[in-house]
């Protein structure tokens, strides 16, 4: 049994040293070179005497160098957190405040932004200053154990404070071995990556490639705005496997690209992150009928996915697609509000997960961890944690799990997981706004801001303010101004009334 995800890299380097590991718009890198460069970074980290099992932030544009840095951090026996250099710095700062990284890996082009925002020069490692041609110091991975962390990914927190989900080697190995076997991934595969590295769907892309010797293509982000160019890229590079968010697949279907660009090279089409409508999936199945289609489901807290469904039958356009059955070595079950097991068809309850896939909690946040990582209420004999997802589901007549919605105010917008509370929190920082409520129109994919203004303000100005505080994907797409927001009898904002007023008009 592997002790570290680095075993994947080491084995693959032995088997396919000169095969291309990662391709990005700037070039490519072989498995051997990836390992070599990662070890150079590891030595540079160790020279800083930061210790082991400590958080390291990666502040780099998405590229092959991000992956080299991740591996370098792991070789130094620390764990990583990827961030987006395009995030407003306030968002980066909220991550820094929670993570307290011992080191930040960046490049020459982005170092200035860190310095400008009062990050100490002492904790910055600029990879442009490293000599990757130098002799490598061989890093020993024997001291890593599988309960050591690989990464901490930050998810939206309803109070505006992000939560760092801490994931171990063991959880990733458990997941990636399952992916490799289930989808029969090998060195012959070419994986087209869409997911940002701060989003855990990228775990499948990165680690399945490292594990099998498949080549990972980091598709340039701008292509996702232009479906025709995206599919030309897929065709030109003969990419055969993708794991994308449904929004991207929907956009391609809506633009009717597949009837004009032949993408039959695609034979494994996986998706997760939000609901995939059958109307759009049927479009894909019509044009690429031979491909395997699979709907995956899972929150970051259980390491990417805990259920999957391989599309095996016809669906009407308006039928919902199952999220399927548990992944190998995961137990997925439904609990009622009274914490009893639901096994009956059609009865709705909360999806709960048990297994090696569970995160070890939210970094440095015992309180939030305890809320959702709880003792299995069905087990009174020994300590066994489960993760309560907050997702409402039921069994259909085939014993497949069907997704219904959320227990709380978390949404999935273009595949991103967002707490409406985090947006409301940011909106309340706008000085002209007195009160605010954010609702989500899942049909039209609109984040609607209902607000009370104390002084005159234009929607544009609100947007402009928000871009400095929250990432682009959280910015409301529709704005409605109220003299006073409707309240419920006990004085809270009447969300239900706002929803009925705003959604569907």
């Amino acid at each position, binding site marked *: 049994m592997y002790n570290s995800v680095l075993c994947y890299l080491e084995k693959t380097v032995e088997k396919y040293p000169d095969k291309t590991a990662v391709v990005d718009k700037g070039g490519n890198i072989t498995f051997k070179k990836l390992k070599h460069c990662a070890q150079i970074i590891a030595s540079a980290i160790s020279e800083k005497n930061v210790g082991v099992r400590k958080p390291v932030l990666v502040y780099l544009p998405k590229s092959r160098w991000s992956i080299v840095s991740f591996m370098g951090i792991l070789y130094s026996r620390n764990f990583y957190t990827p961030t987006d250099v395009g995030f407003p710095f306030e968002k980066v700062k909220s991550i820094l405040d929670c993570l307290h990284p011992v080191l930040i890996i960046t490049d020459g082009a982005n170092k200035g932004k860190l310095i400008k925002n009062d990050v100490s020069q002492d904790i910055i490692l600029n990879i442009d200053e490293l000599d990757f041609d130098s002799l490598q110091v061989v890093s020993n991975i024997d001291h890593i154990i599988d309960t050591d962390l690989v990464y901490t990914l930050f998810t939206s927190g309803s109070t505006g404070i992000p939560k760092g989900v801490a994931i171990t080697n063991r959880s990733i190995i458990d997941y990636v071995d399952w992916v490799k076997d289930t989808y029969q991934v090998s060195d012959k595969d070419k994986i087209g990556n869409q997911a940002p590295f701060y989003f855990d769907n990228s775990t499948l892309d990165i680690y399945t490639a490292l594990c099998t010797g498949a080549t990972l293509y980091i598709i340039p*982000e*701008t292509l*996702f705005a232009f479906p*025709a160019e995206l599919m030309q890229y897929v065709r030109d590079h003969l990419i055969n496997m993708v794991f994308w968010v449904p929004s991207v697949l929907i956009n391609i279907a809506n*633009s009717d690209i597949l009837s*004009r660009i032949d993408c039959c090279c695609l034979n494994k089409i996986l998706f997760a992150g939000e609901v995939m409508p059958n109307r759009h999936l049927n479009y894909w199945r019509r044009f690429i009928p031979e491909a395997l289609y699979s709907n995956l489901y899972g929150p970051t807290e259980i390491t990417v996915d805990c259920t999957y469904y391989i599309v095996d039958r016809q669906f009407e356009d308006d039928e919902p697609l199952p999220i399927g059955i548990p992944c190998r070595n995961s137990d997925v079950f439904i609990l009622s509000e009274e914490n009893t097991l639901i096994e009956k068809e059609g009865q709705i309850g909360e999806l709960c997960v048990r297994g090696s896939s569970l995160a070890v909690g939210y970094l440095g946040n015992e309180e939030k961890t305890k809320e959702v990582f709880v003792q299995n209420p069905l087990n009174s004999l020994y300590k066994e944690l489960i993760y309560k997802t907050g997702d409402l589901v039921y069994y259909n007549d085939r014993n497949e799990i069907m997704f219904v919605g959320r227990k709380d105010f978390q949404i999935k917008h273009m595949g991103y997981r967002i707490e409406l509370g985090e947006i409301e929190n940011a909106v309340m920082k706008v000085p002209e706004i007195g009160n605010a409520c954010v609702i989500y129109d899942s049909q039209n994919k609109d984040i609607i801001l209902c607000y009370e203004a104390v002084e005159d303000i234009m929607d*544009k100005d609100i947007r402009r303010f928000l*871009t400095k505080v929250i990432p682009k994907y959280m910015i409301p797409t529709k704005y409605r101004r109220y003299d006073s927001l409707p309240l419920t009898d006990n004085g809270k904002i009447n969300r239900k009334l706002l929803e009925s007023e705003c959604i569907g008009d």
Partner: protein
Amino acid sequence: MNEIYEILADIRPEFDFKESSDFVEDGYLDSFDIVTLVSELDTKYNISIDGLDIVAKNFCSIEAIMNIIRKNGGEI
């Protein structure tokens, strides 16, 4: 032309599109924005921009956007 600048300013108020020589390269318009922009242009000019025309070079400048509206039968 001003109408299009207004649409762009509504989508990304934090940028001055007159300052940019390439909206896509400069990161003024991302994938969300392109979807919004195409749907706004379709409504405003009563057209239906063909999916194959939704490529970077048709959205990189104000002139390019005007051309693509005209090509799809819109009147500016």
